[in-house]
C-alpha cells in the first residue's frame, strides 16, 4: 500500500515536471462558447488559434531576450455574468495565466473586469463597448470604441441618412450593453432632434422571443426609424416580427449585429438594413486584407468584427509582453510589468486601426466606426467611416 502510494506520487511529480521546464507563457480566454451567442465564442477561438499557430511556428514570442511558446487556455463563460466571473477567477488563480483576453460582451466583461482588477491580472476585452468595463480599473483594457461614441454616431446616421425626426428604440433591459447603448443613442438623438424625439423606448428581457406588443407600440408611435442594439440571435426575430406588425420604416443596429450568423438566421428580411460596427471586411486593404484572406482560407468564412478585434487585442497584449522586460516567474510582478507595458502602448498598428492607451484615465483606444449596409446578396458592404474629431 505504501509502495504504490509512493509510486503514484512519483508519477504525478514526473508528469508535472515538464510543465515547469517548458518555456511558455499562458494566456487565458474568457469567451461564450455556449449560451446565447456561441458564434462570438467560435470567432474568438478561431482567431486565437490562427494567431497562436502563426507565432509558435515562428518560434514563439520574444520576451526579455528569450523565446516563449504561446499556450492558450479557453474557458466558456456560457454568456452568463456569474460564469464569466468564475471563469476569470479560475484562469487567474488556478491556471495562473499572465493575462486574460475577453469576455466579449459587456454583460460578462463588466463583472469579470472587476475580478481581474481586484486580483491584479491584466485583462483586455476585444469587443465590449460599455464604458463600465474599464472605468477606474487600471488592470483592464479594451480593444474597441465606447458606446458613448457609438450612440452619437448611430443617432447622427439615423438623422442624416433616413431624415428621421422621430426614432424608436427596442432593447434588452437586462443586459449592460443594449441598455447602455440605447440610453446613449436616446441622449444623442434628442440632442440632435429635440427632447421627446425618441417617441418609443421599448424594452424586453434576455431570452424573450415575442416582441409583438412592443412592436405594436412602436408601429403606433409614428417613429421613422427603429434602432435595436441587439445580438445576432435576437435581431432576426425582431426584424421579422416588425414586418408582420406592418412596420415598414428602416431598422438599424449597432456593432452586436455584425457578429455571428445574422444572415443565416435572418435571410431576406435583413437585406438593405444598416448598422454601426468596428470594421468592414469588404474593401479592406493591406494587413487587414491579409488577415481576412488567411482566416477565410482556414475557416471557410469571412471573419467578423469579433475575430478581427480579438486578433488585435491578443497582439496588443503580446506587444506589451515584448516590452515588459524579462519574465521573473513571480506572477504578481510579471502581471504588473505587463500592465505597465500595455498602458504605455502608443500608436499600435492593428488591423482594425491605430491604437494608443491613455496613461491617465481609462484604457480606451480612440477608434473610428464604420457604417455597414447589408447588400441585396446578403453581404456586409462598407458604407461610410465615422471618426471622432
Amino acid at each position, binding site marked *: 500500500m505504501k509502495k504504490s502510494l509512493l509510486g503514484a506520487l512519483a508519477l504525478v511529480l514526473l508528469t508535472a515536471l515538464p510543465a515547469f521546464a517548458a518555456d511558455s507563457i499562458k494566456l487565458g480566454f474568457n469567451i461564450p462558447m455556449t449560451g446565447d451567442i456561441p458564434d462570438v465564442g467560435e470567432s474568438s477561438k478561431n482567431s486565437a488559434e490562427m494567431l497562436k499557430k502563426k507565432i509558435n511556428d515562428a518560434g514563439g514570442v520574444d520576451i526579455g531576450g528569450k523565446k516563449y511558446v504561446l499556450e492558450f487556455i479557453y474557458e466558456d463563460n456560457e454568456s452568463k455574468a456569474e460564469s464569466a466571473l468564475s471563469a476569470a477567477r479560475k484562469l487567474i488563480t488556478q491556471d495562473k495565466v499572465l493575462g486574460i483576453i475577453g469576455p466579449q460582451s459587456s454583460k460578462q466583461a463588466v463583472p469579470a473586469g472587476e475580478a481581474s482588477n481586484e486580483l491584479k491580472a491584466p485583462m483586455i476585452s476585444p469587443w465590449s463597448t460599455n464604458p463600465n468595463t474599464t472605468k477606474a480599473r487600471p488592470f483592464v483594457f479594451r480593444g474597441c470604441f465606447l458606446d458613448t461614441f457609438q450612440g452619437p454616431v448611430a443617432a447622427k446616421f439615423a438623422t442624416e441618412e433616413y431624415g428621421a425626426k422621430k426614432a424608436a428604440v427596442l432593447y434588452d433591459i437586462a443586459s449592460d450593453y443594449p441598455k447602455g447603448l440605447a440610453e446613449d443613442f436616446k441622449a444623442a438623438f434628442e440632442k440632435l432632434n429635440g427632447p421627446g424625439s425618441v417617441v418609443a423606448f421599448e424594452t424586453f428581457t434576455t431570452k424573450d422571443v*415575442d416582441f409583438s406588443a412592443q412592436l405594436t407600440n412602436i408601429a403606433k408611435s409614428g417613429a421613422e426609424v427603429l434602432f435595436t442594439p441587439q445580438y445576432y440571435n435576437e435581431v432576426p426575430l425582431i426584424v421579422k416580427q416588425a414586418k*408582420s406588425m406592418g412596420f415598414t420604416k428602416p431598422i438599424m443596429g449597432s456593432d452586436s449585429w455584425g457578429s455571428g450568423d445574422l444572415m443565416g438566421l435572418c435571410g431576406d428580411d435583413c437585406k438593405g438594413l444598416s448598422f454601426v460596427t468596428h470594421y468592414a471586411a469588404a474593401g479592406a486593404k493591406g494587413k487587414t486584407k491579409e488577415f481576412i484572406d488567411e482566416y477565410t482560407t482556414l475557416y471557410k468564412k469571412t471573419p467578423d468584427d469579433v475575430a478581427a478585434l480579438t486578433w488585435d487585442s491578443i497582439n496588443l497584449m503580446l506587444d506589451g509582453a515584448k516590452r515588459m522586460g524579462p519574465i521573473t516567474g513571480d506572477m504578481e510582478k510579471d502581471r504588473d510589468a505587463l500592465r505597465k507595458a500595455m498602458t504605455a502602448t502608443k500608436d499600435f498598428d492593428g488591423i482594425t486601426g491605430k491604437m494608443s492607451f491613455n496613461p491617465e484615465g481609462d484604457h480606451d483606444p480612440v477608434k473610428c466606426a464604420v457604417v455597414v449596409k447589408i447588400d441585396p446578396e446578403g453581404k456586409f458592404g462598407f458604407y461610410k467611416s465615422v471618426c471622432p474629431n
Partner: protein
Amino acid sequence: MLQSFIQNIFNALQWGSFYSLIALGYCLVYGVLLLINFAHGDIFMVGAYIAFYVCMLFLGKLGIIPGMPGWLVLALAVPLTMMLTAVVGVTLERVAYRPLRRKGVNRLYVVITALMCGLILEHANLALLGASRRSFPTLIPTTVYNIAGVNITNIKMGVILVAILAFFFLRFVVVKTKIGMAMRAISYDRFAVPLMGIPADSVIVFTFVLGSGFAGLAGLLFAITYPVLDPYMGALIGWKAFIAAVVGGIGSIRGAFAGGFLLGFVEIMVVAFFPSTLRDLIAFTILLLILSVKPTGLFGVARRTKI
C-alpha cells in the same frame, strides 16, 4: 387606440396559444399520475428540433430526398412531429418514471427525476448538436393582412386556430371516449382501476402520447412563428406554462387552457399599457393575486397534497 387594442388581443391570443398547448401536457400527466412532469418544457424543445429536421428532410435540404412544396411539408410535418415527440415522451416515461412507480416511491422523487430528465434533454441537445442557433426554414410565406388597420399574419391565425381545435379535440377525447373515461378513472383512484380490469399502464402511456404529441405540435408552431432554435428554448416557456397550468387549475383541461391564455393576455397587455420594463413584475403579481384569492387555481379541484 381601438386598433392597437385589437392588435394586441390577437398578439395575446397567439402567445397564449403556446402556453396553453404546453400547459395541456402538464395538466394531462398531472391529472392521471399526480406527477408534475417538469421535463415537459424540454419535450417541447425536442419537438421543435424534430420539426426542424423533418422539415429540412422533406424540403430536400438534407439532400437525401428531393424537395417538396412548403404546404405539403407542413401537412406531413404535423403528424410526424407529433408522433416522434410522443415517442420521446413515452421513452421518458418507460425509462425514468415507470421504474420509480413500480417501486412505489414518494411522488416527490419522481418530480425531481422529471427535472433531471429535462436537464439531460437540454444538455444532450447542446452536446450533440452544438451551441449554434438553427434557423427554421420557411414553409409558408408570411402574408400580412391589414383589416381595418389591424395587422394579422396567416401564421398567427393558424396558431390560434390550432390551439382552439386542440382544446376541443382533447375535451372530446377525455369526456366522450372510453379511454378518456379510463384516464379520468385513474385520476380518481389509481389503485382500484387495475382491479377493474383496465390496463393502467396502457392508459398512462396513452396520456403521455397525448401530452407529448401536443407539446411537439406546439414546438412545430413555435418554430414556424419564431424561427430561431436553441437548446434552452424550452426551459423558460416550460416554467411559465407550468405556472399558467397551476393558475388555471392543474388537473383540469379547461384550467390549462384558461391559464395559458390568461398568462399570454397578461404579459402582452401589460406591455401595451404600462412601460414594458414592468412586464414580468406586473404579470406575476396578478397571478399571485389570483392564487391568493383562489389557491386551487381558476378551475382547479381542492386536494390535500398536490405534489
